[in-house]
């Protein structure tokens, strides 16, 4: 068996037992990246040398009898939203083109400590804003199942590279569905953990109260393996949960007898593609066959999810992205006219700071030149550095937080968010999991929705509430369209019920083989 055909669990075991070297495993995936990624564009950076060096070091470690980490020799692709000290971290934005952070994200550090091999950084929607991966400053990702179609987003590169066997597992991040939706569209398994389960330190922030890093892989078992390494308390992230990490891989095989899965009839309304509806209903039938009971439930505020999300997320984003101003790092516009300040002397710009009454106000004429040059530099750097979707969301958020609008928009969105969270609490009194579609259609063509932001926002219909409620969700393939494109199924669970999400998915994946199907492009050349 080729390393690229092995599950992550098998691959790690093979390396541990000496049946496969980390080097050989890494080479196999690097070879596929080289061969395929020209057509897919899943990677923004491939660290061939670094990956081979790490793999060789792991093999040496094994030979000398030293203990190996739990992910020893496992190639991992990391979304370019996570800081890596040895590779650029761009968030697929011109603003951060070539930016090299001085530190590793906590998740990256944990991967390295577990002896994983980071093969590269994956493409994404700019600053994780988008559902199609078309918002990358470095070109869209092409869906491995149909290259003219969108892989979903924002973790489209991570989903596509796993779908095309360019990496056995990948790290994604999910703010409103950015792991689950591309996983569904690319026919792989993706888990968005409970908010706080995985440290966000070093994840370039989009919307801090919603962002969560998670594993993307070909199966629930592989996701479990990866989650066990990346989950856990980080004192450097105040929102990270200080709770023990379960052994996610150990409870997967327990049957689903007694597990209650909620089905929301409203999910099957207008807008849901009939092929998707059919496959999702089939999946419910399979869960019943596996011993679970399916109970219809109501999520009364779910229809306000997208509106709420598109206030909360842009508001936080407008503030999170303020740091990209050209002053300290990242893209800075070339100085134009008016850049030079009037001659004077060295003087403190702001004698009293930290409570400036007038933002950007100078102290008279001498700094007036500086002020206008500064504002011009800010405006031009941000105009040049950000793409249109990022600008749109910054404007949305800035507007909604402005005096006079705050109560009508942001404050109200927080109230609705609490109602949505309550919906989940109420639902989980009756059921253990909530099932349903991940996205309304199985695929859309590149360019199909990119001109219509509202249509694109509705792509997130089934996924945003999970983030607003802070609970966990997983998506995995549950069928294919007649055209041969994967259809995704989503399960959501109460906070910290990742073991149940993984177990239910794993049980489903023992009954079905949808997750084993590979796109034609992934077939090995003769």
């Amino acid at each position, binding site marked *: 068996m080729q390393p690229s055909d092995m599950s992550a669990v098998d691959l790690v075991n093979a390396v541990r037992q000496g049946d496969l070297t980390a080097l050989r495993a890494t080479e196999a995936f690097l070879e596929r990246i080289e061969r395929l990624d020209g057509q897919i564009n899943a990677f923004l950076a491939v660290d061939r040398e670094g990956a081979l060096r790490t793999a060789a070091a792991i093999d040496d470690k094994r030979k000398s009898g030293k203990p190996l980490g739990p992910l020893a020799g496992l190639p991992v692709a990391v979304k370019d939203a996570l*800081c890596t000290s040895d590779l650029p971290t761009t*968030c697929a934005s011109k603003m951060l083109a070539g930016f090299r*952070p*001085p530190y590793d994200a906590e998740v990256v550090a944990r991967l390295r400590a577990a002896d994983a091999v980071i093969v590269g950084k994956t493409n994404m929607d700019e600053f994780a804003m988008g559902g199609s991966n078309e918002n990358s400053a470095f070109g869209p990702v092409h869906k491995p199942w149909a290259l003219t179609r969108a892989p979903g987003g924002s973790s489209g590169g991570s989903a596509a590279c796993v779908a095309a066997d360019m990496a056995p597992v990948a790290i994604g991040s999910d703010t409103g569905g950015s792991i689950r939706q591309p996983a569904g569209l690319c026919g792989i398994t993706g888990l968005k953990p409970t908010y706080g389960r995985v440290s*966000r*330190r*070093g*994840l*370039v*922030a989009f*919307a*801090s109260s919603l962002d969560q890093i998670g594993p993307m892989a070909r199966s629930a078992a592989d996701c479990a393996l990866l989650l066990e390494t990346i989950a856990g308390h980080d004192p450097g992230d*105040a*929102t990270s949960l200080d709770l023990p990490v379960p052994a996610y891989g150990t409870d997967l095989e327990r049957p689903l007898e007694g597990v209650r899965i909620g089905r929301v009839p409203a999910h099957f309304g207008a807008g849901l593609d009939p092929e998707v509806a059919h496959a999702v209903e089939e999946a419910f039938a399979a869960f019943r066959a596996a011993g679970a009971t399916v109970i219809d439930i109501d999520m009364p505020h779910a229809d306000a999810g997208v509106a709420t999300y598109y206030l909360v997320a842009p508001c*936080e984003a*407008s*503030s999170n992205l*303020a*740091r990209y*101003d050209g*002053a*300290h790092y990242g893209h800075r516009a070339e100085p134009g006219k008016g*850049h*030079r*300040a*009037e*001659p*004077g*002397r*060295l*003087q*403190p*710009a*702001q*004698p*009293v*700071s*930290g*409570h*400036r*009454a*007038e*933002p*950007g*106000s*100078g*102290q*008279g004429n*001498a*700094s*007036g*030149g*500086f002020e206008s040059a*500064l504002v011009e530099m*800010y405006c031009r750097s941000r105009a040049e550095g950000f793409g249109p979707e990022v600008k749109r969301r910054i404007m949305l958020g*800035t507007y909604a*937080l*402005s*005096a006079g609008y*705050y109560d009508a928009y942001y404050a109200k969105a927080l109230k609705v968010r609490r109602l949505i969270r309550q919906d989940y609490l109420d639902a989980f009194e009756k059921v253990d999991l909530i099932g349903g579609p991940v996205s309304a259609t199985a695929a859309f063509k590149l360019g199909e929705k990119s001109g219509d932001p509202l249509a694109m926002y509705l792509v997130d219909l089934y996924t945003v509430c999970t983030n607003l409620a802070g609970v966990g969700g997983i998506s995995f393939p549950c069928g294919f369209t007649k055209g041969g494109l994967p259809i995704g199924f989503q399960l959501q669970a109460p906070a910290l019920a990742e073991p149940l999400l993984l177990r239910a998915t794993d049980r489903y994946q023992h009954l079905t083989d949808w997750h084993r199907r590979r796109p034609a492009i992934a077939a090995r050349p003769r």
Partner: protein
Amino acid sequence: MTATPTAAAPFTTVIGLEVHVQLQTRTKLFCGCSTTFGAPPNTHVCPTCLGLPGSLPVMNRTAFELAVRAALALGCKIAPFTKWDRKNYFYPDLPKGYQISQFDLPFSSEGALEVVDPKGALSRNVRITRVHLEEDAGKSMHDEGAGTGDTRIDLNRAGTPLCEIVTEPDLRSPQEARAWLNELKLLLVYLGVSDCNMQEGSLRVDANVNLHIPCDGGRIAKTPIVEIKNMNSFRSVERALVYEVARQYEEWQATKAEMGKTPKQTRGWDDPAGVTRAQRHKEESSDYRYFPEPDLVPVTVSEEWLAATREAMGDPPSVLREKLAAKWKIPPYDADVLVNQGRELVAYFEDLAERVGEGKVASNWMQQDVLRTLNERGGSIDAFPVRPAALAELIGRVAKGDFDTSRAREIFAEVLASGRTVDDVVASMGIAAVDDDELITLCRELLAANPRVVADVKGGKEQAAAGLIGQAKKKNPNVNPGKVRAMCLDLIRQM
């Protein structure tokens, strides 16, 4: 002072202060970087205080404790639940593009700090509106000299914990504002909350001031509120306010402009010129788009923790003054002088008073000798070479009559200069107690040699005996002048 309108000042001055105090923590508010002042630019920085992508804040619990200590001492209510907010604005010394501060739920509010003058001239309760915590920004320096227009940013200060203390407009004169600031500073230094060093920017003050002017018919006209910034010492706060009060009154007489009809003005204090100058103000009001900081969790404060914090706090200066006056039976003035010198000096005094057994005597020595010397020499009381034990011995020997106070001062000076012990100095100066036989012999010799004095005293001029004291000291420097005088008079009476 102009607490009420008088002929000299036909208006009431209304002043409120906004004070920013840098907390005395080892590390910054949301990261582990050092807060030490004066390091080379941009050396005390990390991803968090540089605002790098992906970095996150983690609250410094010590900073929160210090801030709570300050708020408790100001009599504030401490919120059982407090959260952080982002204050959004763009400036190069604010690398995240927002400042983490507290907006609608500050950790404390509704306190007061009385300003007391022991002479009773100034005594007013100044209400505290709120006290909140926030992070400081960095420093921008515009290098406009070489015509390059460069601006240099030093982010060492970025993220330093600041406590913002806002008063109600309860102060009624520039002098009172200064006195209140002195009291606030003393309090914060006592509590170990801040070093309040204005030169290093550990304490910064903005003042809001306007005038309430009685008009015909009993109506009170209020002049537009002016916020004064850029004051680098308490003295400049007082000067700026004095200037501003006069300027506002003049302006009111000329324009009759009242509050609300013109926008609030910000004026900068130009210390060398001794004037305030209008700062450029924006047409639209600022909008910081405050919203809850999602990267931090709210802070909850338990009653037990508060009680423990209160316990560990120690007495604030106002309480200490009263305690000191009562315990050592010293006048309020003495207690005030001692307490105003800081906690270490009070400890020195109490040690001394305990040994001497008499508070007023110890207090006199503190004020006349120890403080004077400290002022001349500089340095802290903890490094003062004459320790309470030595000084107490000196004072004790004066009380015993071994030598007089002036002789004791000579010894004190010698101990200070040489660093030797009191005994050493006493021995080297040949100081020894003079017994009564010696004294009688000496006095008889003096009377024999000065028949004129004897005659004068007998004639009723007792003060003539004073002339003998100098001679007695020449013969034996250790004699006690009082004893010499008494003995001589006795002997003359027997003659």
